[in-house]
């Protein structure tokens, strides 16, 4: 049997840090970084006598997310204690939600190879993040505990085990991430750990309906690692089953250096969390009025926006999906389109620039659209110069790069660097006439059938115009004058 004889079944659990200003149960800042234990207070330190004070904004963001994903938002939900001992968990329990989460059901829309699917969710609940264990803080190998992150609010979003491939998993995560970023509840940062994903992976023989034993895979902090981890784990489980072994239900960590998953050492006995309702917090009540206010405030979500681009602007699914992956990018695109004129042609050209050249510059610089010196107006201006023939393709690229770097106006850059093409038909004609007159032999051979000589003539005309000839125009005039 081979891997292809098996069906992989995936469920994903995303922990998304909420973009509130303060932690879920205390008024400490959620700002990232800082020296250890500089963003703490008695409550998030878990000192004796403290009590959690629920941040109302966390509830609002949870409800907003539930509405965006089509969940059933519960009028009453309950916090619960998940009890276990670990140094980054100061109280010895995590305040989470167990039997009665704030949202149930819902789905995340994905599109793969042009096929749309809706991946059902099990639930969404609120919980607090743990602190961080830091390794090797002293010569004796001691570890350190930093509680800056303890108490940062998390939404845990759990999918049904309905994903059938790594590609679907990645598509699901990208779609969910884009939705959360559009809502303004999460910043989508995998590296910094504000958007975390654990995968539940199991395999079963293709065609079977009996699910295999699943393993939970943690510590995948990029899409690339996620892919590698799941692929490794699937191979591992398949090999195990083929050799007659059984998959043990366990939690495994992905090791990016080795490209392997291995069992986590420290969570033995962690299975009995002794959940019980959190007595220090009354049940969470979500009033219908709050739900309606939040529903009315929902922004246009990525998949709806992409559908609108396909419908109204005739953009391809590929182009549309790329644009809506980040809200700021799509906002930028539409602002530039407003300046250019909302036609399918302009949309297509603009999409190419935003998804192509600007995406490249953004990746290299690490800047997001709000920080770009290329404003929508400046990009539109550049495209108008291109459309008018003032700039050729290569010239336009240079302009965009320079504007990205310096924030100069496109027109200024063209002038300063002499990038303007010669598009005056009369001037081109004169140059062509001069070139043809100077190369009668080549003209003869071209007219005799040597079509390749066109390139020679184009090169000569470009030389004569110091490279500024509008290529399309040069070609057209040459062909006309060469006849044939």
């Amino acid at each position, binding site marked *: 049997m081979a891997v292809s004889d098996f069906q992989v079944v995936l469920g994903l659990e995303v922990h998304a840090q909420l973009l509130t*200003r303060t932690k879920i149960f205390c008024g400490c800042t959620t700002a990232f970084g800082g020296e250890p*234990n500089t963003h703490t207070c008695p409550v998030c330190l878990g000192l004796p006598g403290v009590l959690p004070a629920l941040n109302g904004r966390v509830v609002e963001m949870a409800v907003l997310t539930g509405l965006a994903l089509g969940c059933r938002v519960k009028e009453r939900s309950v916090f619960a204690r998940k009890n276990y001992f670990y140094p980054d968990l100061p109280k010895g329990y995590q305040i989470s939600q167990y039997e009665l989460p704030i949202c149930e059901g819902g789905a995340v829309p994905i599109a793969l190879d042009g096929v749309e699917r809706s991946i059902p969710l099990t639930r969404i609940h609120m919980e607090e993040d743990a602190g961080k264990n830091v390794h090797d803080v002293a010569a004796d*190998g001691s570890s350190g*505990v930093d509680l800056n992150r303890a108490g940062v609010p998390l939404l845990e979003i759990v999918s049904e085990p309905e994903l059938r491939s790594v590609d679907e998993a990645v598509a699901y995560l990208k779609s969910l991430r884009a939705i959360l970023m559009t809502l303004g509840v999460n910043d989508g940062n995998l590296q910094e750990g504000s958007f975390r994903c654990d995968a539940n992976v199991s395999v079963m023989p293709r065609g079977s309906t009996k699910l295999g034993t699943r393993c939970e895979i943690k510590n995948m902090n990029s899409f690339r690692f996620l892919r590698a981890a799941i692929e490794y784990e699937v191979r591992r489980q398949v090999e195990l089953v083929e050799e007659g072994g059984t998959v043990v239900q366990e939690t495994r960590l992905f090791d990016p250096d080795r490209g392997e998953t291995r069992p986590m050492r420290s969570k033995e006995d962690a299975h009995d969390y002794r959940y*019980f309702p959190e007595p220090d917090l009354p049940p969470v009540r979500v009033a219908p009025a709050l739900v309606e206010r939040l529903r009315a405030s929902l922004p246009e979500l990525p998949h709806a926006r992409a559908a609108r681009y396909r419908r109204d602007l005739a953009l391809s699914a590929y182009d549309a999906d790329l644009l809506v992956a980040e809200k700021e990018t799509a906002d930028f695109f539409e602002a530039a389109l407003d300046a250019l004129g909302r036609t399918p042609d302009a949309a297509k050209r603009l999409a190419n620039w935003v998804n192509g050249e600007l995406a490249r510059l953004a990746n290299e610089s690490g800047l997001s659209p709000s920080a770009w010196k290329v404003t929508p107006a400046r990009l539109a201006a550049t495209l108008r110069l291109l459309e008018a023939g003032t700039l050729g393709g290569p010239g336009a690229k240079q302009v965009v790069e320079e504007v990205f770097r310096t924030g100069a106006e496109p027109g200024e850059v063209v002038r300063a660097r002499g990038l303007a093409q010669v598009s005056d038909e009369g001037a081109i004609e004169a140059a062509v006439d001069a070139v043809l007159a100077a190369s009668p032999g080549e003209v003869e051979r071209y007219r005799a059938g040597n079509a390749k000589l066109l390139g020679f003539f184009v090169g000569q005309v470009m030389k004569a115009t110091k490279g500024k000839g509008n290529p399309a125009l040069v070609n057209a005039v040459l062909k006309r004058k060469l006849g044939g």
Partner: protein
Amino acid sequence: MSLTLDEVRRIARLARLRLSPEEERLFAGQLSAILDHVAELSALDVSAVEPMTHALAAGDPPPLRADEPQPCLAPEEALANAPARAGTAFRVPRIIE
């Protein structure tokens, strides 16, 4: 209801308590006696009863906290009672993951 020593040890492990053998025996007996007493609850019919997990009367919902930052403790204050530290981190024996 008689707790075995194995069960006593399992519970002690869950609770991160290291009991001496005398304590294990003593607790097995004492806890069993207490559990015998609480077993009388099983005689009650509670099938139609909601648990009173939250003592505050319904209809008294508290206002939730506003999302306004409050001053944090200075790290020296946060660590003032720390039995062991490394810089501004709490120090613990090596954690192996």
